[in-house]
């Protein structure tokens, strides 16, 4: 079976700082895969490597079978990307943003309206409003609509729920679950432990290294919360590092 996302020993350095250190994992087709880790763990760097915005220093990865360095043009056609920062045109209206991103991929809003309908219908009443004037939750729904409008095979969502209220966050995860029926593979990152349970599988990432990959249930130590487990894993990792030194 071919994995839509296959990562093999990806390493990325910014000068002396190693942002990603030999990261390897695979994500299956249609899977909702969560990348859980604190700020500065290397989540955004991994997203930028997989969306071909940066080149790795070591290792390789493929997205839908395409190499992230050599086949970057093909990858840019088939992925949807929602960066951590709200990155739509604030001076354009909701509708204009959506139209623009549809046209960017050579399509129209109508072509894939069925895909975004459950999400977009919630902000449609405000379609003439400028994107900059939307609330946090609405901005995020618009950004997701724009990332989906060309029916991508793989969706990359970098901390989509950061800075969004609890109700909107919960709604957002419902929407992601709803995308499963379309066979879209989703890689999503979050710093919130409570959201991990909404993913099918999660990877715990800290300091550029993957600590553990499993289903949210199996990854958690019996009788402990995911958070405690994560902290225990980080401490173990640090102890290992100390011995090496």
């Amino acid at each position, binding site marked *: 079976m071919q994995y839509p996302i296959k990562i093999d020993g990806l390493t990325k350095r910014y000068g002396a700082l190693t942002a990603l250190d030999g990261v390897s994992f695979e994500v299956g087709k249609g899977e909702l895969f969560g990348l859980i880790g604190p700020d500065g763990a290397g989540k955004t760097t991994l997203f930028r490597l997989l969306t071909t*915005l940066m080149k790795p220093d070591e290792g390789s990865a493929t997205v839908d079978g395409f190499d992230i360095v050599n086949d970057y043009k093909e990858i840019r056609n088939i992925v949807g990307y929602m960066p951590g920062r709200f990155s739509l045109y604030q*001076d354009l209206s909701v509708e204009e943003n959506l139209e623009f991103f549809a046209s960017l991929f050579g399509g129209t809003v109508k072509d894939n309206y069925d895909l975004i309908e459950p999400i977009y219908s919630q902000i449609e009443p405000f379609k003439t409003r400028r994107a900059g004037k939307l609330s946090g939750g609405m901005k995020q729904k618009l950004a997701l609509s724009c990332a989906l409008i060309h029916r991508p095979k793989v969706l990359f969502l970098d901390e989509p729920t950061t800075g969004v209220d609890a109700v909107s966050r919960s709604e957002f995860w419902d929407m992601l679950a709803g995308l499963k029926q379309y066979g879209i593979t989703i890689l999503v990152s979050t710093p919130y432990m409570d959201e991990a349970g909404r993913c099918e599988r999660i990877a715990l990432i800290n300091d550029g290294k993957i600590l553990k990959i499993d289903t949210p249930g199996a990854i958690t130590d019996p009788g402990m919360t995911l958070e405690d487990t994560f902290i225990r894993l980080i401490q173990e990792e640090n102890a290992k590092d100390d011995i090496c030194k």
Partner: protein
Amino acid sequence: MNRLLYFIKKESLHILRDIRTLLVVIGIPILLMLLFGFAISTDVNNINVAVCAPVRAESIEKVISEMDNSELFTFKGYVNPDEIDRALRSGKVGIVVVFADDYDRIVSGRIPDEKAVQIVLDGSNPNVAASGAAYLTAMLGGMGSEAGLVENHILYNPQMKSAYNFVPGILGLIFILVCAMMTSISIVREKELGTMEVLLVSPVKPIWIILSKMVPYFLLSCINLISTLLIAKFALGVPMTGSIFGIIFISLTYILLSLGFGLLVSTVTDKQMVALLISGMILMLPIMMFSGMLFPVENLPAVLKPFSYIVPARWYIDAMRKLMIEGLEFSGVILEFSILCFMTVGILRVALMKFNDRLE
């Protein structure tokens, strides 16, 4: 093609939504034209003149009224010989004209080898002094003995109005400044706002981004071209006897070049402020110095002269002088036009090459 149109539409919306910037961009060329054309002028006007004459002869009165009638001089009154120094020192007058005792007889040639008139000037402003003396000498020469008549015929700009000469220079400065500043922030802004990140993860080609950013600003610059040419013609009275088609054609080429330059700046910088500084401040000096806008390129020291060849404004200003003031046809500026075309293509190529389709 459809994608490109959407792209252009999006860029146009950005411009139209920001009305304040739009007004500034349209207003600045008009303001600069009027400012340079009227206020900053090296013409000498209304120099105050005092006269020192031993006798109030009719011939002298005639000279004085002639002087007073010209827009160059204003007659302020008579002074005694011992008051000349004080009048000049106090700054009340810039020139004192001293008539000889035997003015009539000298002028009519009855006493040869004698000076009929002495001009005493305040030299603290050499520009005023030199022009004033030259005008006055010419005027007195013309009125006095026929033998001393000096024929002074100036081509192309007979009244020596500096506004004439300034207009091509200001146009050269305005277009590159306004165009380059507009486009220089356009790509950088997307980098700063983070929209570039989303834009790049799409099949978009760098050439679309460059083209779509140029088209709306090009149309906007056409408005600026029209407004500045209208001011030049009707407010500043530049003759524009040459080929109007040539003026417009070469201006549009120069505008393209300027837009391209801004985009080049935009592709290599990461901050809007830096882009603005480069396209605004750093462009200004070489244009003023090396383009012939303020002083002729021929007067540059030999070491600096080569710089003027690489300043696009120099070629544009040269061509515009020929078209607007000398009244040449387009065929007269083919060289300048070719050089500008060559530079435009070069700049756009480099901008395209420098466009980074990754984040690092």
